[in-house]
């Protein structure tokens, strides 16, 4: 039996020392430990915590026997593995599902190992263990990588950032810078999104009217009237006067101005509404 072959002295010694049952599982004393396997009694309870899954448990069993992954003695490992999950399965069935899948996989490999190794039609030689070996190796390298990363100097554990004091840190808050170009693009964007690009044409003329509208609004109030003529600056020339006039008309149209003329041809007074 291969099993006997790998029985370790320490495990045997341990088993012999124990007069008491090896472990108690679900109240049932377990008199003999599974062959080749020593499970500390308390480990049984935390077995699901101790192993990071079926691959981890398999790796543990292989390491336990100082075996290379490449030489998995499937029959024997399966036996041990099944013992393990039998014990944990009774305790935590719902958590053991992944382990059971692995047990099924091992059983399948084991049964295939019993058949004579054969080439299939394509001439591919199928070692039933190949896939398992691949997965074990893959898992083992990341398990090792996790330990390696954990061993790197960690901030707050192995190294500490210096923080010399600075009195009155002055925090400037610079305002964002904006270019004219950006403003234009924003305008273009909003208009094209509103599907107004083709409908609205804002020309030089209307912009100066709009500027004048703003100007007028800033210079009138709702409290008192001013004279219509005050809104015109003759130094702006004929065009300026026309622009001011158009601006006033626009504002009246928008119901922003109130015009009062007490008599025909009398002075016109304006105030904001």
């Amino acid at each position, binding site marked *: 039996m291969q099993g006997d072959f790998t029985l370790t002295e320490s495990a045997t010694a341990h088993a012999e020392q124990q007069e008491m049952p090896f472990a108690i599982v679900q109240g049932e004393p377990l008199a003999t430990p599974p062959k080749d396997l020593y499970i500390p009694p308390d480990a049984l309870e935390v077995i699901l915590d101790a192993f990071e899954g079926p691959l981890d448990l398999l790796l543990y069993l292989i390491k336990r026997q100082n075996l290379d992954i490449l030489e998995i003695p499937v029959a024997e490992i399966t036996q041990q593995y099944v013992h393990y999950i039998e014990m944990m399965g009774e305790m935590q069935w719902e958590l053991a599902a992944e382990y059971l899948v692995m047990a099924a996989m091992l059983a399948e490999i084991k049964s295939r190992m019993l058949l004579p190794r054969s080439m299939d039609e394509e001439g591919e030689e199928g070692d039933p263990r190949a896939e398992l070996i691949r997965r074990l190796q893959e898992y083992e390298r990341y398990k090792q990588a996790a330990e390696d990363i954990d061993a790197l100097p960690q901030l707050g554990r192995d190294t500490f950032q210096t923080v010399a004091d600075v009195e009155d*840190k002055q925090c400037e*808050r610079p305002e964002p810078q904006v270019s004219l*170009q950006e403003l234009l693009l924003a305008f273009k964007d909003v208009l094209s999104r509103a599907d107004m690009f083709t409908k609205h044409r*804002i020309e030089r003329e209307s*912009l100066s009217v709009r500027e004048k509208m703003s100007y007028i609004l800033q210079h009138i109030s709702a409290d008192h009237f001013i004279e219509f003529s005050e809104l015109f600056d003759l130094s702006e020339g004929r065009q300026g006067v026309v622009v001011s006039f158009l601006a006033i008309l626009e504002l009246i149209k928008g119901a922003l101005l109130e015009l009062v003329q007490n008599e025909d041809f009398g002075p016109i007074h304006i105030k904001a509404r």
Partner: protein
Amino acid sequence: MLDKSKQIIEAALLAAGKPLLLDHMLELFEESERPDRKVLRELLAEIGRDYEGRGIELLEVGSGFRIQVRAEYAPWVSRLWAERPSRYSRALMETLALVAYRQPITRGEIEEVRGVAVSTNIIKSLTERDWIRVVGHRDVPGKPALYATTRHFLDYFSLKNLNELPTLSEIRDLDSINRELELREPGVDEQTETDEERADEQEDVRTENRTNN
């Protein structure tokens, strides 16, 4: 050993993030290796001398010893906490553009064109920047404020008057290359994408902070 103690004390003072009392420093050592108080004071004095002519100094304050940046270096070092010039959100830029081109305009009208609500923060930022101001109220229910650009807005963009704002036909010619090449601000250039993304996300928060200050 003494030198090692000195290194330990310096490292601890630099990492502590707060002033350390003599007793606290002594507690860092196992009893067997612990320097006595007199030696500790000497080591501290030595560290202080090492820092002469440097950007940092060792100072004894009420609650112990601390290492700090010398006041004369603070102007440079405190720039670490200056915020990077950020960028305005698209919503803010579009609002500003609409005020510039369609003034006087109400918030409701801006919302109508943009199809989404204009946040109060945007109006606030633009007003605080002194780029827009209320010039009147439209005579409709609710009397909404009418916004127009300011003199300061013209100055910022080096415009003599609004006539100098480019027309739509000029805008039409702008293509995506302009967007790529000319929109990049010096200083923003070297920001990584992530920084910029983060800057965008933080925009609202920052605006709020600013108004709180």
